[in-house]
């Protein structure tokens, strides 16, 4: 099997505080192949955004990586510092954030912000900056006349697309997207998703897409990774997981989204709320909310085990119990 583009092993991230460290990401494995679209789904505070920022080496105090490795193109990303890390940034992988209104500098025009990124990595003339700006804006369907515009002058959808355009400046092989559609209305969301997948087909980059909206992303992703309370609880190719969700949490998530076609079923949510990560529940972290909880779940923490191509963390499946 080819070396994955991104190989995250056993990654743990914690928020340090005097009142007690909060383990936001707990021993997570994630592998992304070249050109793959991986969706990372889960409730708020399950650690998916923290995971992505850890991968992008964008954590800020009090968040800190407390364990694990991140390998990008075979290179260890964790111990890369200073100039070497800076060199990689944006050229090899880039980031798209949730709110473009906050992520774009309100005082600078699009071209100026694009130019900043370009000039940080190579000597470019103003005309080269202009040219590339026009190119990437066209790629995302923004009229190049807006290159001199300021973020507040664009609509919400255009701003998000501008952020994606910025992420494409160096045609990176991996783009990490943290809920890029959450700030948009449903129509704009669809449009943006379509744009992203089209660009992916054209340019061939891999995407790690963080979202809480499972139904939106499952039309576009190759693989789905479900997270809960800082851990991966299920991971499988999208079609497989969609057709046959194994983990009670994933099943709960699917049951919460109505389907336009298909039989009318009763909508159920998942009662309760995510645990306090300073003191996660003993045993399986999901057990307080699990509709099919067993006695063993309260004391035994399940491991991630392969179940016919699906990785699942649940004691109901063989292999998940610790030896």
């Amino acid at each position: 099997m080819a070396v994955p583009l991104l190989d995250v092993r056993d990654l743990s991230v914690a928020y340090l505080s005097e009142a007690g460290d909060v383990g936001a990401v707990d021993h997570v494995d994630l592998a992304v192949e070249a050109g793959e679209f991986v969706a990372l789904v889960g409730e708020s505070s399950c650690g998916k955004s923290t995971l992505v920022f850890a991968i992008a080496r964008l954590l800020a105090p009090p968040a800190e990586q407390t364990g694990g490795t991140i390998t990008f193109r075979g290179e260890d990303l964790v111990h890369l510092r200073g100039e070497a890390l800076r060199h990689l940034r944006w050229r090899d992988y880039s980031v798209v954030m949730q709110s473009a209104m906050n992520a774009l500098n309100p005082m600078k025009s699009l071209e100026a912000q694009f130019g900043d990124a370009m000039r940080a990595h190579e000597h470019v003339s103003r005309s080269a900056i202009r040219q590339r700006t026009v190119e990437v804006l066209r790629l995302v369907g923004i009229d190049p006349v807006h290159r001199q515009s300021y973020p507040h002058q664009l609509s919400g959808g255009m701003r998000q697309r501008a952020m994606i355009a910025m992420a494409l400046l160096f045609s990176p092989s991996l783009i990490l997207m943290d809920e890029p559609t959450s700030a948009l209305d449903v129509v704009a969301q669809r449009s943006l998703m379509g744009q992203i997948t089209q660009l992916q087909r054209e340019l061939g980059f891999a995407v790690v897409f963080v979202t809480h909206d499972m139904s939106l992303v499952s039309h576009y992703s190759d693989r789905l990774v479900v997270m809960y309370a800082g851990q991966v609880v299920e991971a499988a190719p999208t079609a497989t997981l969609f057709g046959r969700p194994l983990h009670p949490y994933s099943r709960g998530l699917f049951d919460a989204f109505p389907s336009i076609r298909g039989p009318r079923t009763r909508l159920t949510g998942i009662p309760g709320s995510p645990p306090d990560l300073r003191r996660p529940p003993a045993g399986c972290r999901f057990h307080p909310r699990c509709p099919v909880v067993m006695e063993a779940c309260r004391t035994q923490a399940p491991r991630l085990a392969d179940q016919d191509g699906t990785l699942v963390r649940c004691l109901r499946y063989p292999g998940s119990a610790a030896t």
Partner: protein
Amino acid sequence: MSFVVRRVGLFLVTLWAALTLNFLIPRLMPGDEATAVLAQFHGVNPAALHALEVEFGGTAGQNPLVAYVEYLGNVLTGQFGLTATRTPVIDVILQGLPWTLGLVGVTTVLAFVLGTVVGMVGAWRRGGWLDGLLSPLLFILTTFPVFFIALVLLYVMGVAWHWFPISSNYSLGSTPAPTLAFVWDVLAHAILPGATLVITTAGTWIFTMRNTMVTTLAEDYVRMARAKGLPSWRIMVDYAARNAILPNLTGFAMQLGFVLGGSILVEYTFSYPGLGYLFFTGTTNHDLPLQQALFLFYTLAVLVCVLLADLATAWLDPRTRGA
């Protein structure tokens, strides 16, 4: 546009308020200071005497509204009456003006630059040695009264160590001439008062800058700048500092009133013959015409600076500029 109109409006209203205050004070204050003032001016140039009467309410039975209008007219034409020594107030003021302007102007600019840089670096390395040193140091500098710092500097550097002259703006006996020696003399005399002002003005500014920077550094667009691989100094200056200074510009200008007050005390301590020193001599001579005119000038200075800062903020922020 409406923003500009509003700020100019506030400028005019406050100016009018100060002028009216000046007009009302002699008439409302208990005691007979006002009449005493006028009493000393018998046998003087009738135009000047009349101006004083208009301002201080000497002419019995004069309709106050008429006097008010005339007073406003006088102010606009620079007719402020005479000082206790029978010289036109406006002449005395113009003599001291350049010295105060120079002293306060230069020190304010220096304090602004120094404060911005130190505040910026302190916030960037939050918790580092500079930040740790800053907090107690700033605390002391911003709570110690201006005149205390002036007295300490005067004693330590002027008297004990004989490093700098301790009074006046240039050596007794020398005549002003555009020679290097004279310029050097002036600078030497300005150092101690200047240092006092820089220290006290920069103190509050460093505090404000640091705190605003800390907030700005937590913004998404700063994280995005890191993600793009921009060098640290560029992020600090171009993405953080720029966005941090702007909202504080007006606050800095409003602080000017405080700075000007401090400059009065500093000029007194060092016998520096600027407008502030005139305030003091005016007190000894009960020279109300001079003092009231000075009050107007100081108010005007603050108003102009605040207005300029407001306009600069509006112009520099693309969000208000375009709209």
